[in-house]
C-alpha cells in the first residue's frame, strides 16, 4: 500500500504526460494541463518545506550550542525577519519602497552577485595551474581555450588584424565554436538525452524506485 500506490501514481501520471506530448485532444490535454498546475503548486509547497527544514536544523544547532552557533543565529534571524516582513507586507511586497524590496536589493542581490564574482578570480588561478600540456588531449584543451578566449575580445581582433579574414583569431574562434565544439557538444547532448530518457522510463515504469525508499 505505502509503496504500491505511489508507484502506480507515478506510472499513471508519467505515461499520461508522455501521451499528452503526442495527443493534442482535449481528453488528454486538459488533465495534463491540470497535472502541471498541480506540480507547480506542490513544488511551491516544497520550497516552504525546505525553509522549515533549514529553520529546524539551525535552531537545533543553536540549542545544542554547536560550534559556530552564533552564525547560525544570524541565519535564523535573517530567515525569520525576511519571512515576517514579506508576509506582513502582503501581495505587493515587491513594490518599490517596501522593506522586502530593500532586503532584496541590498542584501540578497549584492551577496549573490559578490559570490558569483568570486569565480572571476578562480577562473584565472585554475587557468594558471590546469592547462599544463602533458598529452595531446591537454594540448588541444589549452590551445582551444587560448584561441577562443582571445577571439572573444576586441583586443584579439586588434592583435591579428593584419591576417587575412579567415585566419583572424575571431574567425578561428568562431570556427572552433561552430564545428568541433558543436560536434562534441552535440554528442554529449544526445548521449545525456538518452541517459535522461532511460532514467525517466525506468522511473515511470517503477523499475527505478529508489526515490520512494525509506521506512514504511
Amino acid at each position, binding site marked *: 500500500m*505505502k509503496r504500491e500506490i505511489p508507484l502506480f501514481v507515478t506510472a499513471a501520471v*508519467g505515461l499520461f504526460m508522455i501521451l499528452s506530448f503526442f495527443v493534442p485532444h482535449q481528453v488528454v490535454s486538459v488533465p495534463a494541463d491540470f497535472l502541471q498546475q498541480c506540480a507547480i503548486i*506542490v513544488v511551491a509547497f516544497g520550497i516552504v518545506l525546505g*525553509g522549515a527544514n*533549514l529553520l529546524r536544523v539551525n535552531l537545533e544547532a543553536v540549542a545544542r550550542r554547536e560550534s559556530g552557533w552564533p552564525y547560525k543565529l544570524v541565519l535564523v534571524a535573517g530567515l525569520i525577519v525576511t519571512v515576517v516582513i514579506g508576509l506582513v507586507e502582503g501581495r505587493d511586497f515587491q513594490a518599490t519602497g517596501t522593506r522586502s524590496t530593500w532586503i532584496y536589493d541590498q542584501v540578497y542581490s549584492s551577496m549573490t552577485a559578490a*559570490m558569483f564574482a568570486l569565480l572571476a578570480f578562480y577562473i584565472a588561478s585554475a587557468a594558471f595551474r590546469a592547462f599544463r600540456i602533458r598529452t595531446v588531449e591537454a594540448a588541444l584543451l589549452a590551445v582551444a581555450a587560448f584561441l577562443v578566449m582571445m577571439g572573444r575580445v576586441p583586443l584579439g581582433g586588434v592583435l591579428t588584424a593584419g591576417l587575412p579574414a579567415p585566419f583572424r583569431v575571431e574567425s578561428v574562434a568562431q570556427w572552433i565554436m561552430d564545428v*568541433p565544439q558543436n560536434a562534441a557538444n552535440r554528442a554529449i547532448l544526445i548521449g545525456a538525452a538518452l541517459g535522461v530518457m532511460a532514467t525517466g522510463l525506468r522511473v515511470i515504469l517503477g523499475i527505478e524506485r529508489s526515490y520512494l525508499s525509506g521506512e514504511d
Partner: protein
Amino acid sequence: MILHPSHDPAVWVAALLTLCIFSFLYRDNPFYRFAEHLFVGVSAGYYIVLNFWTVLVTNLWDPLAGAFDGRHGAPFAARLGDYRGFLLLPALLGLLLFSRFVGRIAWLARWSLAVIIGVYAGLKTTGFAQGDFVAQVHGSIQPLWTGHWGTSLSAWVFTVGLVCSLLFFYFSREHKGALGAASRLGVFFLMISFGAGYGYTVMSRISLLIGRFQFLLYDWLGFR
C-alpha cells in the same frame, strides 16, 4: 580622480556585504562567515515569501476561494486553466509533503512525490526526446559536399567529430582496435570542446567581477 562616497546607508550595506564576501579570497574569516549565514537565511526567507504570494496565493488560494464563495457557479465547474474546486487536490498533496516532520506518517509524502516525479519524468522524457535527441539528430544531417571546399571540409569535420564523440560513449565493448581509434579521436573533439567552453566562459566570469566593481566604484565610491 574625484570620489563622492554615497550618502545612502543602503548602498553602504550592499558594499560592505560585498567586501565581506570578497574577503574569502584571502582566507576564511568571521566577516565572510557572517555574510554567508545571513545570505543563506535571507535567500531561504525570500524564496518562501515569493512562492507564498506568487504561487500559493495567486494560483491556489484565490481560485479556490472563488470556487467556493457560491457566487461564481458550481465549485467543480472547471475549465481549461481554471480548475476551481479540483485545486483541493494539489493543496492536499502539498500539505502531505509536511508529513515528513511526523515520523509515523512520513510515508504519506510519497504520494506528493509520486505526482511531482511522474509529471517531471514525463515532461523531461518527451522534452529531451524532441529537443535534445530528434532535433539534434535532425540538425546533424547536412550535405557533405556543398560545392565549396571550405564549408564541405567543415561538414566532414563536424560529421566525423560527432560520430567519434558518440562512439566514445559506447560502453558495450572495450575501446580497442578501430573502436579504440575512433573513440580516441572523439576524446580529442571533446577536449577541444571543453577548452573552447572554458575560454568562452572566462568572459562570463570576468563580467561578474566587472559588475561588482562597477557597483563599488560608481554607486558606492561615486567615482566620476
